[in-house]
């Protein structure tokens, strides 16, 4: 099951050229661009691992792409996303986030129903991938 988180996730995967243009837009707006990766695709997993430092004082997106390719070399079997943080007053939050790399095989999620008192049901989603220990979840 293809996970859909962040921008553009219902579109076909972005090409490097499309990623470059998105990153260039972010840099042009003065946002800090981050590269983050994880192998826990749960939608409530907010805190992904960061690759290097946020990049904000670059004039051109080629430098960010260079880092992304480095990250792909090491963590190409995991999810990698770009996020852009706007530090200007009043925003001080993420403005854009999109997935730029995903594992070849996405096993999807299991829905668990927990029967509580009085016929209530609580739902839990668990990624099948997360059954295995971290670092060995994909491939």
């Amino acid at each position, binding site marked *: 099951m293809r996970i859909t988180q962040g921008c553009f996730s219902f579109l076909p995967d972005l090409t490097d050229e499309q990623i470059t243009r998105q990153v260039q837009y972010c840099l042009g707006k003065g946002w800090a661009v981050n590269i983050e990766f994880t192998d826990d695709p749960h939608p409530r997993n907010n805190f992904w691992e960061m690759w290097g430092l946020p990049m904000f004082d*670059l*004039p*051109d*997106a*080629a430098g960010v792409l*260079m880092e992304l390719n480095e990250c792909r070399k090491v963590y190409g079997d995991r999810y990698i996303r770009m996020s852009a943080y706007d530090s200007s007053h009043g925003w001080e939050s993420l403005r854009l986030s999109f997935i730029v790399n995903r594992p070849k095989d996405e096993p999807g999620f299991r829905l668990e129903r927990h029967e509580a008192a009085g016929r209530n049901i609580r739902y839990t989603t668990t990624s099948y991938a997360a059954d295995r220990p971290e670092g060995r979840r994909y491939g």
Partner: protein
Amino acid sequence: MDMDVPTTTDRVSLREELEAVGIEEILTQLDRELIGLKPVKTRIREIASLLLIERIRKRMGLTSGAPTLHMSFTGNPGTGKTTVALRIADILHRLGYVRRGQVVSVTRDELVGQYIGHTAPKTKEILKKAMGGVLFIDEAYYLYRPDNERDYGQEAIEILLQVMESQRDDLVVILAGYGDRMDKFFASNPGFRSRIAHHIDFPDYSDDELIDIAELMLREMNYKFTPEARAEFVRYIALRKNQPLFSNARSIRNALDRLRLRQANRLIADLDHVLTVDDIKSIEASDVRASRVFGKGGKSAEAD
């Protein structure tokens, strides 16, 4: 989809193309503001022409791959290497060869780290900043220390070489340094020599060029020589040139700064005098003559 269809044209007016880019303006500005440096200007003109033709070829659908434009500038101190690097970036940007046209000027300190594992991130950080523009490495020969085998400079060189090769479209690297030491540097790093397409040598300035430079600098600072002061300054240049540590235009600039100091001092000395604009602007022969270069005949170095 429209954008992907290449718009090929059969005829291109060279003049229109030239005017559209605005390159001629930069080149004439270069001629006007940089005195001397004939071989440098010729080479820049050649590069500009090549890129212009390349642009037109692209529009006609005759692709031939972007030419390599990494350069090395060699020459004595104060011959204008940094100034030209800034101009080149502007030219390349106008011709669309580099996307942003910023110049990131670095020396060994900014590229090479202090301990194991420090160099690669540092060098990459600089490279990222320079992407889409020009990376100017001043005194590049310091990157390589032959006396120390475990010097981290070698690591920086390897990363640079790799990026110079694989990301030719993204940045232009310019290495600068004094002639003889750069030759040694290239001799011990053949990879660099072959990856650099343009080796440009900056000649020393002649006496006439130096006086032109001095007058240009003064004009920019809103000063001027009186005719006698100019004659004195011609003598000054001839004497200064034979002293040690003479560094061309940089020595001239330092000399002019000292002249301004002495002129200010002379003006302050006479408090009752009512000053005109002309007084404030003029540098007198006495200001020049007070220089130590005339007196001790060669003993003082950069001191005065």
